[in-house]
């Protein structure tokens, strides 16, 4: 399979005080179509890693290649383009814009890629249908349940058909039942060939993935198949 993500000795040191090293030389290869969970204790650098993968931030040192292109040191404009075209981001707190309807929220990445309104609309409706919200298109986020809101966020992340779907604790704000729904959606997306990388600290979420990485103190502690997870823990 084609290699999609390649991290080589990646460092992230936050310029706070003497410098807070959040990532200390991470090496990671991710192929197309993988379904990866990143686990680890709080403060171990999971979000930092995901933000770097999502081109929301630049590494202090090391190289990040995405789809064969070195994206470790791009200009702000180019990074925005990469985020827009190649990355789909799902947040723990949904991050929908409250004043906009479901379809309008899904249209945001299409808007920034310069798609005309005429073409945006059918695409965002298509995405809303994909996540099972065809009857909620004109609703505003406040009128939806948490699970529904997160599904809107997933639809929005996928609107521009990105290379990877990144999710930082996507079920962190959801109850067990709705978490299951969102994970079922992820599983389905994976089965259709979507590359998914998610951060979670919950084993029952991580088991959905095919590969699990454990982070500790800014480094990858272990990298294994999901079968090795002790589901009883």
């Amino acid at each position, binding site marked *: 399979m084609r290699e999609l993500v390649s991290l080589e000795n990646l460092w992230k040191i936050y310029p706070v005080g003497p410098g807070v090293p959040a990532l200390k030389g991470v090496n990671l290869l991710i192929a197309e179509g993988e379904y990866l969970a990143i686990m680890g204790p709080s403060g171990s650098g999971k979000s930092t890693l995901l*933000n770097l993968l*999502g081109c*929301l*931030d630049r590494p202090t040192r090391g190289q990040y290649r995405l789809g064969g292109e070195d994206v470790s040191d791009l200009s*702000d*404009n180019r990074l*925005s*383009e990469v*985020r*827009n*075209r190649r990355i789909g*981001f799902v*947040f723990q707190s949904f*991050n*929908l*814009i409250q*004043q906009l309807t479901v379809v309008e929220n899904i249209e*945001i*990445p299409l*808007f*920034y*890629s*310069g798609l*005309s*309104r005429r073409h945006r609309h059918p695409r965002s409706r298509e995405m809303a249908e994909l996540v099972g919200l065809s009857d909620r298109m004109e609703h505003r986020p406040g009128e939806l349940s948490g699970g529904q809101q997160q599904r809107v966020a997933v639809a*929005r992340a996928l609107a*521009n058909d990105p290379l990877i779907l990144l999710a930082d604790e996507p079920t962190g704000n959801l109850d067990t039942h709705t978490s299951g729904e969102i994970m079922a959606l992820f599983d389905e997306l994976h089965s259709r060939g979507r590359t998914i990388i998610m951060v979670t600290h919950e084993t029952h979420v991580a088991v959905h993935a095919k590969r699990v990485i454990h982070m500790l103190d800014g480094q990858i502690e272990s990298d294994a198949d999901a079968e090795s997870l002790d589901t009883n823990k």
Partner: protein
Amino acid sequence: MKALHKINDILLLGLHSLGVHKVRSALTALGIFIGVCGVIAMLAINEGAGAEAQRTLRALGSTNIIIESRKPPQDDSKATGRSWGALNYGLTKRDVTRITGGSVPHMRRYVTVHQTKKMAYLAGKNLSISVIATDPTIAEIVRIKVQAGRFITSADMLRRKPHCVITAPLVRSLFGYENPLGKTVRIGGEPFVIVGMLSRLPQALSGEGAEATDSVIIPRTTGIDRFGELTVEVRTGSRTYERVEISRLILQMEDENAVLAAAPIIRSLLERNHDQEDYDVKVPLELIEQKKKQMFLWNVMLVTIASVSLLVGGIGIMNIMLATVVERTREIGVRRALGAKQWDIIAQFLVEAVTLTTVGGVIGIGAGISLPWLIRRYLEFPTETSVWTILLPFLMAVSVGLISGIYPAMRAAKLDPITALRHE
């Protein structure tokens, strides 16, 4: 094409978020509205006053120079010109010869005016009127329009005809609504036939005072014939006479340049030959130029005052936009995460600011146009709205939006996406 779509979309986006905060947007736009409205009204009033002044000055004739006799300030210790209880002052025939005898270049023609007070008598009615004896060429020099009948002619002059042209208010008091043409009226005891009628006396002849509304114009030669050389004004209620040889001398110059060159020559000629200021040299062109300069200064001042009000409006907008940026930090982070470039964020907030001021500006123009109209209609004050009195405040409003929007927009765009996303 793509860029065009995007501009259109960003505009809609800006309008959309303004619609979310309707009251806040309306209040912010109100500040600009008041500013724009005020500027338009102020400029319109000033333009109106200026245009009116210019019209009156132009009516005096921009190529004319008017020299008037003026009663000098009363000073009894200086007994100059006093003889037999009469006060002599003003322009003399010698002055006319000096001025028109070749020392003033590029003069086209001139005319003298002799004005005196007489009693008019008709069918039992007695009225004190002002009699103006002058040449028929005056009609061309100061643009006299006859309302009915005709003006005095050179034939009247030659034959010293007892013909007169009468002003409308006097017609009203003497004849009511009867046709006065061809009728005879006694003026200073002499019979005169009315040959024409004027709606009112031109400004060059009436001077500033309204005394001359009841006037007749007669041929200069007839005046000399019937009433003598000297123009004598009897001051009623006082025992002194006033003697004035020439009431007015009106010069018509070849062009406006000649006017400006002639004015100082005339002034110094008169200064040398008069030991008191018993004359007044009026140069409409100079007054027009002066008026223009004055108008410009007023405009600058008004625009400055108005700019202050717009500045206050601009500060209001900047304040609101800064608050908006803080309030929407999270949204900015989300948009950045989804691919918005810094420029997209700047454009979004600028459009909001400019839309606010533009809406305020457009409504301000609407009210700003009707305000001068109302002032003209109900306060009967002349106002004038031109393209620039409307365009200038509007452009000022839009620039205020741009300028006050730039800083908040830049701040929004410079936010770090991750920090913005974490904002509560």
